[in-house]
């Protein structure tokens, strides 16, 4: 068996700069500086390349937290004048890492291609929480920029001392400092400090406030930010050289597979180990409470054992949930577990009573899963009283703390080595698999790798909450929207947090029962000026609260697609009732209000206009007259905020009236997220968001009977395919700020905002094409066809 674990190339590259040099030894001898010494040690041990290193188990630790108030924890200058940045973020494939390199290179004044970046491993990077909430650039970017600016300041001081001139008389470009009055006097960053420590303390009450003495550059001074260097992770992803978390291998490692309850809420009564003992390389059946797994020397044998293992389960006395066909009726009937007082503005009752026209509609959105292309996985090594976990969990720091708590180990004996993995768009089962790997490694006393099977990933991954949203709106005689009532029910009672030691699946199956974290119901985000409004947000639960495959957690913009489908479909219904053009109807709702903090309305208007212009929108009410042709075409618009990011999308669809099939032929996205770091990277992130949302609009729905989830693979849980790809996608990067060149233009989140409006844009386009309003997601062929037939289209 070939045993090797490679590490991400940029880490390897960074290490290569040190190996064999005296500076590396100096780093290793340093005691006061955790990040550099431990990064070297950690990488050496995580990187058993070949024979001699392969013999090494993980060192005993401890793995103390790198000190974010030390400049050396963030920036290292090498002797050859290159730099390595260390950030506590992870990259799910949206180019976060490349964006951090751009921001930090700009502030340090070094060429982008002379830098590398290390991300997300708990013992070598400061704890910025990993990823989540699309706030990497918005929240974690500023401290990263400040520390890089501080490194530049210190380097200029060193040069100042060397040349005996004040720092103000020095110029710096691409890592070379020159004396302005005598350009023959020059020194590189590498010559100034290469391989040595800064030994500079930083300040900051918390990591987000980390700062040195230097100021960051103003926006017009930035040279690398706003350009599009290629993502540094892509070459190794296309030539096969990247080692992913799924590839983690360490000497003596064995393989595990889980055995899940066949019925949700079932109790494990007994296991017949003799049913698998004859499998070659069988090591152990591990069970505790209702958690059950098998461990074998070889992976394929662990899979075989998990299928062959005989276990006796007792079904729960009552059904764990309604069937997916009955879901919405159940949700409407259920007594809410949470019903905060409604938010009321003006007098919606009276306004509706006096309205010339009242429109009512109810929208339904199913549970949807992450269903990652690669099922959840993790590997863990328990040697020497420590625990090292190799994981793609986007919140590696939380995984570390959670596992330490779960296994009752000192936190500084646990570390998580973050590596790339399949999509991490929120609270994925990577959390659960990381805990399982660590638990199993401790039980077996050897390194264990566990991976979920496809049926587990699809059925047991966390789900985004299902929603029903009821809306009522009143138009006056002129077609103005005078009142809007919104009432949502979210099936989100047991919403999971990240890496919680008492809510990860293994903990639930072992019987832990924390108080449910009652998730919230959300409302659409918009800046519409509607004088009378009422919003009521309810949460409902399923009969089975714990140990259920219908456990909810954050999935890329956790409530956005659901409630925006309702909100922006309904605005379209109101526009149609007012016989108004959908773009003009929205613009009218955004115009004339006095309050416009942070230019929100101005930015919304600019984005709607930009999308309409890019599309070539012809002003007319929807629907358009339905002809007799087989393929009906239409266009729909949808608008929203996420945080401070504005997104407007227009979908153009073709609806086949004979099959009910919908093809989203063209998408336009106008997007304003403030300062853009990497336009080409952002463009692809927006494309991915929109197509992900198309998949959710057209295909995705977690199906279940009254015992179990029946969506278990790609046939029972279809997803978007190549055949569905739009023929054309236009992206317009809008900046609706009245002064986009101002020195402090902020950057807002862009990782998931663009997933929010797509479902509604598609629904509105289908309405425009056919005159049929679809109010239940997904718009599968059979549903569309039935709706067309019912409406005699």
């Amino acid at each position, binding site marked *: *068996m*070939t*045993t*090797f674990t490679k590490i991400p190339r940029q880490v390897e590259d960074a290490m290569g700069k040190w190996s064999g040099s005296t500076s590396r030894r100096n780093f290793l001898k340093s005691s006061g500086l955790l990040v550099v010494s431990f990064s070297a040690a950690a990488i050496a041990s995580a990187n058993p390349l070949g024979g001699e290193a392969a013999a090494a188990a993980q060192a005993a630790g401890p793995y103390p937290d790198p000190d974010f108030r030390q400049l050396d924890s963030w920036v290292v200058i090498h002797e050859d004048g290159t730099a390595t940045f260390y950030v506590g973020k992870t990259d*799910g*494939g*949206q180019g976060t890492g490349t964006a951090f390199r751009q921001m930090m290179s700009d502030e340090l004044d070094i060429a982008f291609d002379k830098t590398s970046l290390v991300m997300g491993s708990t013992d070598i990077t400061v704890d910025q929480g990993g990823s989540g909430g699309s706030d990497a650039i918005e929240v974690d970017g500023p401290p990263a920029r400040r520390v890089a600016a501080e490194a530049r300041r210190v380097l200029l001081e060193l040069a100042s001392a060397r040349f005996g001139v004040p720092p103000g008389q020095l110029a710096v470009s691409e890592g070379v400092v020159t004396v302005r009055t005598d350009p023959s006097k020059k020194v590189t960053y590498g010559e100034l400090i290469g391989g040595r420590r800064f030994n500079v303390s930083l300040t900051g009450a918390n990591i987000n406030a980390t700062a040195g003495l230097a100021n960051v550059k103003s926006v017009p001074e930035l040279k690398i930010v706003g350009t599009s260097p*290629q*993502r540094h*992770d*892509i*070459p190794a*992803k*296309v*030539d*096969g*050289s*990247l*080692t*992913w978390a*799924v*590839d983690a*291998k360490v000497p003596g490692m064995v393989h595990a597979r889980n055995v899940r309850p066949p019925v949700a809420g079932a109790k494990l009564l007994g296991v017949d180990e003799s049913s698998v003992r004859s499998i*070659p390389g069988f090591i152990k059946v591990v069970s505790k409470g209702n958690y059950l797994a098998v461990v074998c020397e*070889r*992976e*394929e044998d662990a*899979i075989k054992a998990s299928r062959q293992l005989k276990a006796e389960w007792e079904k729960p006395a009552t059904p764990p949930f309604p069937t997916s066909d009955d879901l919405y009726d159940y949700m409407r009937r259920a007594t809410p577990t949470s019903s905060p007082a409604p938010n009321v503005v003006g007098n919606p009752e009276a306004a509706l009573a006096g309205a010339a026209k009242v429109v009512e509609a109810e929208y339904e959105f199913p549970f949807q899963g992450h*269903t990652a*292309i*690669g*099922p959840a996985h993790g590997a863990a090594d328990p040697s020497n009283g420590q625990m090292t976990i190799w994981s793609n969990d986007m919140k590696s720091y939380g995984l570390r703390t959670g596992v330490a708590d779960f296994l009752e180990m000192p936190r500084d004996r646990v570390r998580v080595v973050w590596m*790339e*993995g*399949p*999509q*991490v768009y929120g609270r994925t089962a990577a959390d659960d698999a990381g805990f399982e790997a660590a638990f199993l490694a401790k039980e077996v006393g050897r390194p264990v790798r566990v*991976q979920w099977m*496809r049926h587990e990933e699809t059925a047991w991954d966390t789900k985004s909450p299902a929603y029903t949203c009821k809306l009522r709106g009143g138009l006056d005689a002129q077609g103005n929207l005078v009142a809007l009532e919104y009432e949502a029910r979210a099936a989100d009672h047991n919403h999971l947090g990240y890496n919680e030691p008492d809510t990860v699946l293994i903990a639930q199956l072992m019987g832990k029962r924390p108080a449910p974290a009652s998730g919230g119901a959300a409302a659409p985000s918009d800046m519409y000026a509607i004088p009378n409004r009422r919003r009521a947000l309810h949460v409902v639960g399923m009969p089975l609260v714990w140990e259920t495959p219908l456990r909810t957690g954050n999935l890329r913009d956790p409530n956005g697609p659901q409630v925006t489908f309702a909100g922006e479909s309904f605005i379209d219904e109101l526009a149609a009732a007012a016989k108004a053009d959908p773009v003009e109807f929205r613009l009218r709702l955004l115009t004339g209000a006095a309050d416009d903090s942070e230019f929100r309305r101005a930015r919304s208007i600019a984005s709607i206009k930009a999308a309409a212009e890019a599309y070539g929108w012809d002003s007319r009410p929807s629907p358009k007259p339905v002809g007799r042709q087989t393929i009906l075409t239409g266009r729909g618009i949808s608008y929203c905020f996420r945080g401070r990011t504005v997104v407007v999308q227009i979908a153009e669809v073709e609806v086949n009236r004979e099959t009910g099939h919908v093809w989203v032929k063209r998408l336009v996205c106008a997007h304003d997220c403030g300062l853009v770091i990497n336009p*080409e*990277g952002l463009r*692809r*992130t927006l*494309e*991915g968001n929109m*197509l*992900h949302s198309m*998949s959710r609009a057209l295909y995705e729905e977690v199906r279940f009977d009254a015992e179990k989830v029946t969506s278990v*693979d*790609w*046939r029972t849980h279809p*997803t*978007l*395919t*190549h*055949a569905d*790809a*739009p*023929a054309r*996608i236009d992206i317009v990067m809008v900046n609706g700020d009245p002064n986009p060149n101002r020195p402090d233009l902020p950057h807002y989140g862009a990782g998931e905002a663009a997933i929010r409006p797509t479902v509604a844009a598609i629904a509105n386009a289908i309405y425009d094409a056919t005159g049929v309003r679809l109010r239940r997601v997904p718009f599968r062929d059979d549903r569309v066809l039935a709706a067309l037939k019912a409406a005699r289209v």
Partner: protein
Amino acid sequence: MSITLKVNGRAHAVDVDPSTPLLYILRNDLGLQGPRFGCGLGQCGACTVIVEGKAIRSCVTPTSTVAGSEITTLEGLAQGGTLHPLQQAWIDEQVPQCGFCQNGQLMNAVVLLDRVPNPTDAQIREGMNGILCRCMTYYRVQAAIKRASTVMSAALPASGEEVVA
């Protein structure tokens, strides 16, 4: 049972149960990381490798059935340190998001262009349709295939046939 596998031009003898799916042998015995487990059901394509010019799903292919056949994995696409034109097109188009499925996208595209050097949009959609991506990079994958097709056609001698992998 000892089985000889010819992978990326090198022969390897492995002693395994002949029914073991090829994927686990490639990954765990030969240390290859291009093909990945996605479903174990032949539904998603993440495990795709090329056997005698055909894209196959290694997760459902018994190892014994490919003994002695020429097997190419993602690691074997580049020749003499030069990336396959499709790999280069993937970089030029910046195709991957997470990238986990891209092994299947690339390997399937290699076989597609081998058979249809200048595919139409419809042929690309149809030829790639079984390869799933949950970051939904389909739009970029299709653009990269067109880009590579153009590059490869330009590089071909007038009557020549493209040699793949």
